[in-house]
């Protein structure tokens, strides 16, 4: 009988999830008192921007070559290319205690890890996604492109007309360390799928250690441990969750409709250089995952 009572108690404890607060806290939700919504002027920008997400890590010796390819493309293409450095995996991006004082910074983010695990789970580093578009490789569903085809893949999208237009107005308040980011999404096509908006907070040109094998990277770098490697466009925080917030319900919007959505984040890490911050916003198709438009804004 005692055993039965014990078993019942185990059942009681294991079999119940008491939820105290059923509403999930919406990550990055703006408080109008702290982040007043700005007024957008008409968006005259008509090109499609391309989001390039580079999965990288400071202990990945091949990764500087991919970073240099993206950097070169950015220099040539300009505003239409929106690069993001996503540091991922414990193997390549975790701090290396045995190498102290080298490689002690952890650039990994929860959101970045979710992106890798969900969109390029089997890809080795470096791996690059071009607007998360499927079809650039011979493997259906593989979103990370062949690195040798990266420039071609990027350029293939530059002439497209955007299905949505996007512009952002973001601010940083040095007194409170608060970033307020707002985006205006303008519908340019008949959209039958749901679409979501993501806000990323980046820190550009972070100087820190990087291991390098001497192949394909910026010519000024030499093989070995590079102390002041320039980590560009480092993803620091996905402000409204890696899946973002659904802003378009398929079939329920019309061409010309405008949607304004915001996200906020308070920086608590004193090591971030707030004069190097960028906000990247992008809209993606929830079904295909393809990024339809992206926009980068320096703060």
């Amino acid at each position, binding site marked *: *009988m005692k055993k*039965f009572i014990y*078993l*019942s108690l185990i*059942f*009681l404890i*294991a*079999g*119940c*999830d*008491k*939820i*105290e*607060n*059923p*509403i*999930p806290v919406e990550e990055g939700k703006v408080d109008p008192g702290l982040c007043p919504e700005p007024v957008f002027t008409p968006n005259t920008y008509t090109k499609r921007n391309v989001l390039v997400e580079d999965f990288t890590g400071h202990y990945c010796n091949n990764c500087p070559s991919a970073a240099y390819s993206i950097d070169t493309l950015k220099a040539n293409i300009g505003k239409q290319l929106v690069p993001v450095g996503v540091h991922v995996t414990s193997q390549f991006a975790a701090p290396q205690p045995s190498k102290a004082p080298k490689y002690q910074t952890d650039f990994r983010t929860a959101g970045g890890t979710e992106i890798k695990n969900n969109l390029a789970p089997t890809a080795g580093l470096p791996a690059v996604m071009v607007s998360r578009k499927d079809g650039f490789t011979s493997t259906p569903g593989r979103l990370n492109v062949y690195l040798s085809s990266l420039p071609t893949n990027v350029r293939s999208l530059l002439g497209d007309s955007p299905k949505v237009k996007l512009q952002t107005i973001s601010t940083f308040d040095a007194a409170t360390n608060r970033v307020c980011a707002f985006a205006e999404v303008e519908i340019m096509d008949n959209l039958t799928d749901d679409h979501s908006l993501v806000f990323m907070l980046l820190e550009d040109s972070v100087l820190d250690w990087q291991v390098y094998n001497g192949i394909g990277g910026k010519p000024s770098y030499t093989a070995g441990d590079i102390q002041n490697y320039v980590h560009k466009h480092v993803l620091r925080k996905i402000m409204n969750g890696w899946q973002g917030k659904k802003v378009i319900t398929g079939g329920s919007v019309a061409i010309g409709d405008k949607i304004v959505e915001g996200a906020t984040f308070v920086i608590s890490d004193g090591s971030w250089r707030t004069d190097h911050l960028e906000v990247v916003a992008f809209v993606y198709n929830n079904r295909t995952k393809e990024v339809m438009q992206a926009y980068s804004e320096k703060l």
Partner: protein
Amino acid sequence: MKKITLLSLSILVGFSGFSQEKNSTDIGQIHGNVQTDVQYYNEDSLIGAPVVPEKMLMNGFANINYTRGNFAAGIRYESYLNALQGFPAGYRGTGIAYKYATYNIDNLEVTAGNYYEQFGSGMIFRAYEERQLGYDNAMDGFRLKYKPYRGVYLKGVYGKQRLFFGKGAGIVRGIDGELVINELSDSLELNMKTRIVLGGSFVSKYQEDDNQAFILPENVGAFAGRINLYRGGFSLATEYVEKINDPSADNGFIYKKGQALLLNTAYSQKGFGASFTAKKVDNMSFRSDRNEGQTNLFINYLPSTSKQHTYNLPATLYPYAVQPNGEIAFEGDVSYKIRRKRKKKIKIEGTDEYRKPFNLRKYSTEISVNWSAAFAPDTSIIANDSLRQGYTTNFFMPSRRIYFSDFNIEIKKKLTKDLKFVYSFFNMRYDKDIIEGKTGTGVVNARIHVLDVTYNIDDENTIRIEAQHLGVNKKDNFFEDEGNWVTGLAEYTISPNWFFAVLDQFNYGNSDSKKRIHYLFGSVGYIHNASRFSLSYGRQRAGIFCVGGVCRVVPASNGFTFTMTSTF
């Protein structure tokens, strides 16, 4: 049930190896039953019969069970080609829907596969089948029953529930313990006049959180306690169940706890019986898939506290369906048998002869009075409900809104050796919006009279006639619904093989004169040993069919129906 050779049952040969029986000549037994219902549908737009593309539909099943000693195994093969009108559309196709193997050893019973089970009154857990409703929430997994000590009964269940030919998304697990005080010792068994049974249960379900809008509990538990007392003709049974937060499509994804209390007391002695039931249900829809509806995947069963009628009009026009989201219900029932009384023969004056006096009490008379009512609970909506508790409830306080009430009286009287009648009166109040989930209808008040006369022509031939009338109250803001009905039934039985019946239902009081329709329906049946065949033809009106407070809507139909049942 008969023994058959093992050679013809090669599928079950393997099972015999599990048996504890040592007798090699005992090859076990196979028994089972089969039923087939085939219905041919004519188009009949007048009565609103839906068009059936297949023209003909069929439901069928066959139970085949094998037993040998303390081992049993079996299957149920089912076919829905396609399911008869009114059955849940999920039943489609054929297959083995139920399979099990079970054995008993040393006070332990183990079942693998499908099984039905109930804890207490069923308010926390009941897996059962009601074939006429298309209801089947059989478990598929394991069940253990163990009696570790005299008077102590333990049960454990673990599995998924049947959903048509598949299984529900959630996992259900539960334990139940029952203590029969009187059985604990020989002394108690002999000397204790009051039988006391104590019980407790815990049931939990697991389902993945599949909702982005809310943080959903993946493990939802419910617990129950019960006490049953019996002494002489008196009995008292009560059970309380509580369920933790279980947001679901049924309750609008609120996180309020669920509660149910059932109290049932009865007294009976020769010629007299009385019972009273009180029940409170609050937010007690408990399914293994929070997104399901209809009668799919209920873990628990909420007992009905209204009388289940058998006569056509009271049974199918306004029957009550238990409201799992909340109700407070009561039922009282009294039955009394007026004993027969013999009168002495009266001497005819001036002669030596005697005559039989008129004696209305030559045969007994039975009178039953029943009342039941279900009320909406007294609740208050919570404003600014950020915790999604929904509302608060006064525990056993009904509100003024009556979902349903039914006062009925039945008098059974045998007039002669061969003639008897039953008269019944029903006064029902039926909130159509709530019970049928409609909007803009209203509350129906129906008064029904039924006269049922049976005459035994001889030992083999019997005729039975029913006359029924339903009148709706058109005053006091009651909803007229389809208006008045009259029903006539004539049934002729030639024992033991044949029966014939003709039924006509006439909606003579419908406010729409085009709908004043006769629903004429005839049937003939033949019974031979353990097999029964029946063929029917005619119109059947739309209605609601309920068993034990669980209901399904039956659409109107016109056509032939063939039914065959057989047991072996």
